[in-house]
């Protein structure tokens, strides 16, 4: 129903709307939804960068990037890097690699990545 949709548009929070839009975008790319990642098998996922974690200079260099597709999130870990041009909060990326579990979240070490729009 058109009316129902309109009411939904007006009553949903911005966050929900954004999440849906992101999910729809990722679906169009034809990648695996992050929530369906299977550990230790290659996966191609996409999403928006939520947070970027910079580890201190004293520690081993690594860049941890949380990518969310609106339904789940995965952490891409770039070992040996402190900074990757274009990898910054708010950017959309496609990430390809083998996911592993770390507690409640999934990690992909040194993934192949592609910057999107």
């Amino acid at each position, binding site marked *: 129903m058109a009316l129902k949709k309109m009411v939904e548009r007006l009553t949903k929070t911005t966050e929900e709307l954004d999440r849906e839009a992101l999910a729809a975008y990722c679906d169009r790319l034809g990648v695996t939804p992050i929530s369906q990642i299977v550990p230790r098998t290659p996966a191609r996922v996409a999403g928006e960068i939520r*947070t970027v974690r910079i580890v*201190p200079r004293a520690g081993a260099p690594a860049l941890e990037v949380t990518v969310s597709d609106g339904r789940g999130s995965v952490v891409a870990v770039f070992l040996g890097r402190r900074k990757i041009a274009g990898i910054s909060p708010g950017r959309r990326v496609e990430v390809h690699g083998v996911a592993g579990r770390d507690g409640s979240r999934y990690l992909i070490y040194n993934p192949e990545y592609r910057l999107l729009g």
Partner: protein
Amino acid sequence: MAILKRVLVGRPLASVEQEHQRIPKTIGLAVFSSDAISSTAYAAEEILFVTAVGASSLVLGLDMLIPIAIAVAVLLGLVVASYRQTIYAYPHGGSSYVVSRENHGVNASLVAGASILVDYVLTVAVSISAGVAAIISIPTFSGLADHRVELGIALIALIALANLRGIKESGRIFAAPTYIYILTLAALLIYGLARSYFGDVGQVPFDREAFEGAREAGGTLGLFLILKGFSSGAVALTGVEAISDGVPAFRRPTSKNAATTLTAMGFILGILFFGTALLAHRLHPYPSHDETVLSQMGLLVFGDGPIYVLLQFATVAILTLAANTAYADFPRLSSIIARDGYLPRQFANRGDRLVFSNGILVLSVLAGGLLVAFGGLTNALIPLYAVGVFLSFTLSQSGMVRHHLRLQEPGWKRHTVISALGASATLIVLLIVGITKFTSGAWVPVVVIPIIVLFFKRVKRHYTKVANQLRVPVDYKPRKMNHTVVVLVGGVHRGVLDALAYARSLNPNHLAAVTSVSDEEEQERIEREWADRNIDIPLEIVYDPYRELTDPLLRYIDELDAHYENDVVTVVIPEFVVDHWWGQLLHNQTALMLKGRLLFRRGTVVTSVPYHLREEDRLGKPAASAEQAGTGEAASRASPDGGKAEPDALTRTPGEPYRS
């Protein structure tokens, strides 16, 4: 604000300054009976308002006055006799609440407590409105008639203030107005009756305009109206229980002295009330909102000389004292109920002047509200009044019956009969009042008292629940906490660096700094600064597309919480503290909002690390201020609450680059 309070309320008193002064019977009579005796100022008039107005006539009403007065006097005798038992049985103060709790159980005591509390509020409202009526009855002050509500509110404010300062209810100054009133009223009755019987004085000139009733003669006075009039007269009994509440204040032997005082009060009240009715019967005053019956008779008997004015002011004074009695009792009873867990704890706390300040304030607000709602008219408030009184009388007296039956002390049979008689009489009056006045106002307490009882139970249930949750099993050991500390970072500046040092000193399992960015430029700046400073704490950069700060940060903390299985997350917020309140207005309030949101999050501690800014430095070079406010100081001042400091370090300061 603090200065205003000091001036109005006075310096705080230490707990040890509390003293208890025992009082002799003469003072006790004045102190505890002002409430009861003051009702002679309006009880006769209230009977007339019912029996002489409307369907009936003034003549019929005046004729009924004496029989009603006799009935009230008999009732008074029964109640006094019954309460003497209570005084001997409960030498530590036998308020209806206490007696019901010990003899009837919790529910009855709550009903009694609620009805007495309602009653105290009404005592204040009724006494004050009657006092105001006495003031505006004086011809000189008749112009104030339109301001009766304001006048009443002013009086309540005055009494509340006096009580907030703390006045000894046993103070000797209270004795004077009561005795002056008793004497002037007695003089009026004796002199008035004498003059009337010797034909020296006629009747009060009848003013058609001022008389509230329409007809001068004719009409009928049915049983319903007579009973209704009787219910109005029964308000004379309010306050009789005051002495039994205050037994411990009397000199030893406390019970004997208190009982003697009660009897004396019963006689004084009975004689004055009956005398007033008798005089009214002779002098034919008429009920009016413009001039009280007492004032009409005083003016007629004494003329408008100094004795009349003294009578009026003595009336105002004793009515004010009656209101003051409620101010002593309401807070005390509410504190007892609060200590039993049926009212919020705040009622049980003594304020800094050793008085139960919260009870005083609540009473003032409620009584003031009633006064406004009923236009300051005694007559409109009276129907609400008697229900609570007689409900508590009945519960207390029937409680005494059970007490006698249970203990069977010497002479218990006689005592049981007296108490039972008192209980049945008050129960009958309660029913009469409730039925005849239901539509004219008695429904209010009938509705309100159960609501208050429900409220009591809710409060108790809550406190019980809390107590159960806080109870510690014998073998309970708090387990080691998995602790994560998150420092909120707006930019890299002195305050943030201090906050990071503080966070590190907490030695948590996980430590991270978090910042939010809304574009790439910001991200690069903060990254660069972080790297330049060589800070050895990982920095999380959270994407915040709508620059709202709170939601992305909360989401981030949620994720963190889920990942580390934290027991507790401490969110450290660096804050600027400015010297002046107006300086705080210049700072952004976003972090304050964040604090508000975090307050309700489970397992979250919010810590504010203050960074003190000095005025001259802030104007010139904001970042490099206050050499003396070192890391150690900042950390030691940090409190889980954050104090009054204004958070700012998270957000942009005007005239400063975003990441300073």
